[in-house]
Each structure stands twice: as C-alpha cells, then as structure tokens.
C-alpha cells in the first residue's frame, strides 16, 4: 500500500497501515544515518521550506538533517508569530512561500489548527512540526518507533504519559498514534493540566495519582512542564510538582522492570525527571532524538510521493 496524503497534519485519522508504513520506512531510513556517506538522492531537486513561527532548535535541526540526507534543498525561515499583529497574515505568508514553488513546507506554529489552515491554501505538501496544543506528529511517530524497536510491537503496550496534558501536542499525537496501533494509554497530571473528555480520544485512562499510571507500565513518558505557559494558577511551585508528578528512581520501580523512560525534551532536570532517571539505563531520550531524523525522513519521503526520482 502507499501513503496517499498530500500533507501530514496529525496522527489523528491516519490508519494503522499508514502509521505502520511510516514507521517501517523510518526503520529503513535509519540505516542511511549509519552510513559513512549519509545521503541518498531520493529528494534531489525538491525544495523543503522549514517555516518556524516558534523557536525550536531540535525539531528544526532534525527536519533539516532529514531533508538533507534525502538530498533536498532546504531553506529555513524563522518568523515571529506576532507577524499577525504586525500586519502580515499567515495567509499572506503562505501565498508568498507558495509563489516560490517549494515542494514541502514543514511548519511549526503556536496556533492550533494553523497547519489545517495552511494546507488548504497551498498546493505543496505541509508537514506539521507542532501546532499549538494540537498535534506534533513527527514526535508521536518517533516515540512509537522507539517503543517498537524495544518491544517489537506496539499492540498491547501500556504507556503512561505524565504531566501537562492540556497544553501538550505531544500527548495528543502519542494518544492518537498509540491507540490506533493497539496500545493503551494512561494519563496522569495535576487536574489543572488535564483537559476535559481526553479519555474519549481512544483507549485512554485518566489516573488521579501518578503512581497509578506508571504501575506496571511498559513505557513512562514524562512531558515537559512549559514554565512559560503555566502562569501562576496551574501549579503552586515546581518543588511540589517534582514531588508529586516527577519521575524518580523510587516511583520508577512501580513500572515494569524493563520499562522505558521517555521525554520529548528539552528536560527540566529535577522537575519532570530526576537526573538519575534521565541519564539512567532505562532512559531512551537520546534514542528518541536519533529516531527523530529517521521518522522525519520517512515523512518527507511519503508526502513527496514515496517514489525515487526519475533520472
């Protein structure tokens, strides 16, 4: 089967087969990154625009490396989200970039739904590199790839996701992807960070206590607390957050003995994760980063038609 979507806006709505295909291709792409000459001509002559309205070093770099390993020409544009208030609308930005005839736009934007908006207005492919609190499909895929590599399959896995679920696009993409692939998801976090109805998104359980969520879990995914977003009303202090919702060697023992610890990064050390856990044997954080490049190569490859260029 092929991947017949112009864009990848989110993991919601993708079928099991499509996700499987993206992951299988990523596995193959990973081999390229291990070569001496890390480059294949797959996207030669294609132009990939990295359009980042929100600061992000690792995701942007990861997409850029992915595109370059496939021989695409990449252009990075950093724009301020406040350009809207300065007068240039996303619609104008889209039209301008479209006029330069790129093949793929990789965009990050602070507004949920911005990619949905863009994809309807440009003829090239759009890949979502994070939109507000909506989706972050490349992160979801790299998380799944990392789990699949360790456990062989996603079916039947129990994944605990802990932290600020409300503002997390990673949580949503993980939930959509994992539940489609047959895993079950348990969520935990302060009720101030748990959005209503989240359990209706799939095979999702909301736990009031973090220990309940990680008990017997195969994977513990700790979300980043976005210090700039929490204001003063969602949690009293980081100290208390770390005490009740942080992962440390003690509560990690509640998970399965071979459980994998994940984090989308960047880590607030001593808040979501104690350094013992972040740098410990069970941590897959750097593998996640490594897999990020492979997954993004797979995404770029599939939206561009998934075919080798004709000479």
């Amino acid at each position, binding site marked *: 089967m092929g991947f017949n979507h112009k864009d990848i806006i989110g993991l*919601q709505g993708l079928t099991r087969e499509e996700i499987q295909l993206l992951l299988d291709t990523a596995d193959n792409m990973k081999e390229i990154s291990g070569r001496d000459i890390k480059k294949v001509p797959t996207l030669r002559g294609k132009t990939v625009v990295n359009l980042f309205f929100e600061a992000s070093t690792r995701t942007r770099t990861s997409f850029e490396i992915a595109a370059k390993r496939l021989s695409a020409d990449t252009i990075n544009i950093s724009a301020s989200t406040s350009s*809207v208030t300065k007068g240039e*609308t*996303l*619609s104008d930005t889209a039209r301008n970039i479209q006029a330069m005839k790129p093949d793929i736009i990789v965009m990050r*934007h602070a*507004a*949920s*739904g*911005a990619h*949905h*908006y863009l994809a309807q207005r440009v003829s090239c492919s759009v890949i979502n590199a994070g*939109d*507000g*609190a*909506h*989706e972050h499909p490349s992160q979801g895929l790299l998380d799944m790839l990392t789990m699949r590599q360790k456990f062989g399959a996603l079916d039947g896995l129990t994944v605990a996701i802990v932290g600020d679920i*409300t503002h997390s*696009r990673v949580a*949503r993409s993980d939930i959509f992807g994992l539940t489609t692939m047959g895993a079950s998801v348990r969520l935990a976090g302060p009720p101030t960070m748990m*959005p*209503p*109805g*989240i359990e*209706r*998104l799939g095979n999702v359980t909301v736990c009031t206590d973090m220990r309940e969520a990680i008990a017997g879990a195969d994977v513990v995914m700790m979300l980043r607390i976005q210090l700039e977003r929490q204001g003063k009303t969602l949690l009293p202090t980081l100290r208390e957050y770390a005490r009740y919702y942080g992962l440390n060697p003690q509560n990690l023992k509640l998970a399965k003995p071979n459980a994998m610890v994940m984090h989308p990064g960047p880590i607030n050390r001593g808040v979501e994760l104690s350094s013992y856990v972040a740098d410990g044997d069970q941590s897959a954080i750097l593998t996640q980063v490594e897999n990020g490049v492979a997954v993004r190569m797979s995404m770029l490859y599939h939206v561009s038609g998934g075919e080798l260029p004709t000479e």
Partner: protein
Amino acid sequence: MNLLIKGGRVIDPSQGIDEVLDIVVENGAVKELGAGLKAPAGAETIDAAGMIVTPGLIDMHVHLRDPGLEYKEDIITGTKAAAAGGFTSVACMPNTKPVNDNKAVTSYIVAKAKAEGLVNVFPVGAITQGSKGEALAEMGDLKEAGCVAVSDDGRPVTSSELMRRALEYAKGMGIMVISHAEDLSLVGEGVMNEGFVSTELGLKGIPWAAEDAATAREVYLAEFTDSPLHIAHVSTKGSLRIIRNAKTRGVKVTCETAPHYFTLTDDAVRGYNTNAKMNPPLRTADDMAAIKAALADGTIDAIATDHAPHHLDEKDVEFNVALNGIIGLETSLPLSLKLVEEGVLTLPALVEKMACNPAKILGIDRGTLKAGAVADITVIDPKATWTVEADRLASKSKNSPFLGWEMKGAAAYTIVSGKVVYSRS
C-alpha cells in the same frame, strides 16, 4: 402608502389572534383587521394567501458597526439585511467607534437611520463611559437622545459594585440594562467552549462556568436592587437554570438566546472553522437541549441574532486570532421557524419571542397589529426554500456558519410604517 394585506394567517399574540384575516393599513398605521375587507382608495394589495402575517419582527441585539467600523457594516447595509430577514426594527449595540456612550453618537445613529435606514433602529447606549467598566455613562442623556437600553455588550462590567450602581441608576432613568454575563477571568485566553472538542483540537476552552457564574451575579444584583435586567445571548444550561429560578422568585429578569445556540454545537468548530467562533461560544448538545426547553417553557423571552459582521480578513486567519461573532439577520427567521417544525414552539409563541417580547422588554411601541399601531408588519412565506449564498446576502459581511445551508421559510414582505421595504419576489 395604503395597503390591503389579504387572506394571510394573521398571528398577533398581543391580541390573541391566530386566524385568516385581511389587514388594512392607512397612513402608516394599522386601520383594521377583519374578513373580506376592502382596499382603501389608492391602496396596493398584497395577496398573503398561504402566508403568515405577524407584527414586524424585532431583533433586539445587532451590531451595525456604524459609526467607525463601516468596513464591516453600516446603517444602510445593516438595515437592508434586517429588512431581507423580515425585521422591521433592530436594537444596535454601542460598541461602535466611538462607543455610543453619549448623546452625540446616539443622535448620529438616530439621524442616519431615519434618513437612510430601511427599518427602525433603536440604539442601545453604553452602561459605562467608553464601555471601560470604570464610570457610569450618562444614561439620562442617552435615553433622551433615543437609546432604549444600556449595555456594555461584548465587555462584561467586571466590578460588581459598578454593576449594582448601574442597575440602580438605570432604574431611576427608566432605562433597561442588558448584561453580557461572562466572568472574564474564567474566560482567560479561551477561544471556544471548553469540552471534548476543545481538548481534541487543542484549542483553549471557555468553561460554561464563566457564563453561569456571571449570570448568577447579575441575577442577584437585579434582585437586590429590584431593577429590571435583561441577559443577552444565553448559551448554557446552567444560566437558564439560574434565570428560571430567579423568575419564579419574582426577579425582574428577562433573557434572549440566538439562533446559532439552538442550531449548532461546538462540533461546528471542527476544521478550525472561524465562522463558528463567537462569544459566548457554541456549546454542547446538552446545552442546546436546555435552550430548546427554556424556549418552550418561557424562560427565554426573546430570540435575537447578535448579528456581528466582520470583514473576511478578520475571519480568514488562524482560529485563535479570528474575531468573535457571526452575521444572523438573514438566517434568523428560517432557523427559528425550524423550532415550530420540531414542536419546540407554536407559531404564536415564536412570534412572541421575535416581535412582541422584544418590544415589551425594550419598552418600544411595536410588536402589535392593534388598530392604530404603527404598521410594522412581516409577511412570512413559510414554504419558501432557499440556499444561503454569500453574494446574495445584503449584509456587507459574509461571516456566517450557515453558508451553503438549505433554508425553509423567508420574509415575503417586510413593511415598515406601512411602506414595503423588502419584497422577496
């Protein structure tokens, strides 16, 4: 101009009439209702067979954007849209530029509407100066210049003390206070109803408690000051429970809802549809059911559109930066007639909510077909079917979530002071 409106089903709840009758209009006033009436000399005859004839519909909550925001709408296009929708009168909210918080602005609106408007325009002045919620506006002057109510619509009066004084002061001036009941600290940066859909779309939510908590405050202040109060655009089950309860205690509270709240739910936001972004936000199926029940049991007194025109550029943006509001004047009647089809309201009850009650609440001499009354009349073709198309809307703005919808029912004739200002054919 003299008129004979012949053989229509006349529904006038103000006189308890629901029968096939003729109406004679002379010199801008209703002269006579009866069977087999003769046309007065030089009269035009409207054949209303198969039609419904009602007191002119009144939309007590619209935004005409004039003065200051005429790129969205102005008094001419706004009243044209009203006429096309079957409305003979509209009450326009004060959030213009400048804010209608003084008699100069009120006088401008009244004069322009009189000179160029197609339907009656009753301005609503501001509760506070500049609608800033800091000091009371000159309500006496506003009333004298022609305002029929005061409201800081779109901007809740956050200070409870100031709201208390506004209710007391307005009572002294004999002018109605209309409240936009919303606790802004609970709204925060919310852009849609807080619930499953906002969770799925990753959009910031506005909890129903933001409306309920504010409604409760307003109701208690109205009770405490023994002043009449009207709550605008009610959208939640909880607000209706509070208002219903207050009414049984004898609190002088009335309220309105808008057609979108009994037609759409927050599901309409899916796809990040900015034409489904409004304030208060579209709620859930549960709230929609409560609104229908409250229309049926009389808790909701009026249907108003909150007609809120916005330019395409203000809606063709990311959802979170799109402006709130939709136009409603031209779709209100068919959407409301659906309530009759669904058995929520009888036709006379619908006419009460769209004509008689708004007149009563605002204290204007409209909403009736009694002999001698101003001949503001709406002739409705209940069978007309049509599609909502942007380029056929009279409103300057096209921000409607109903574009492309099939509608049943339309105004066949809109008559203001005995003059036909809109005819469908």
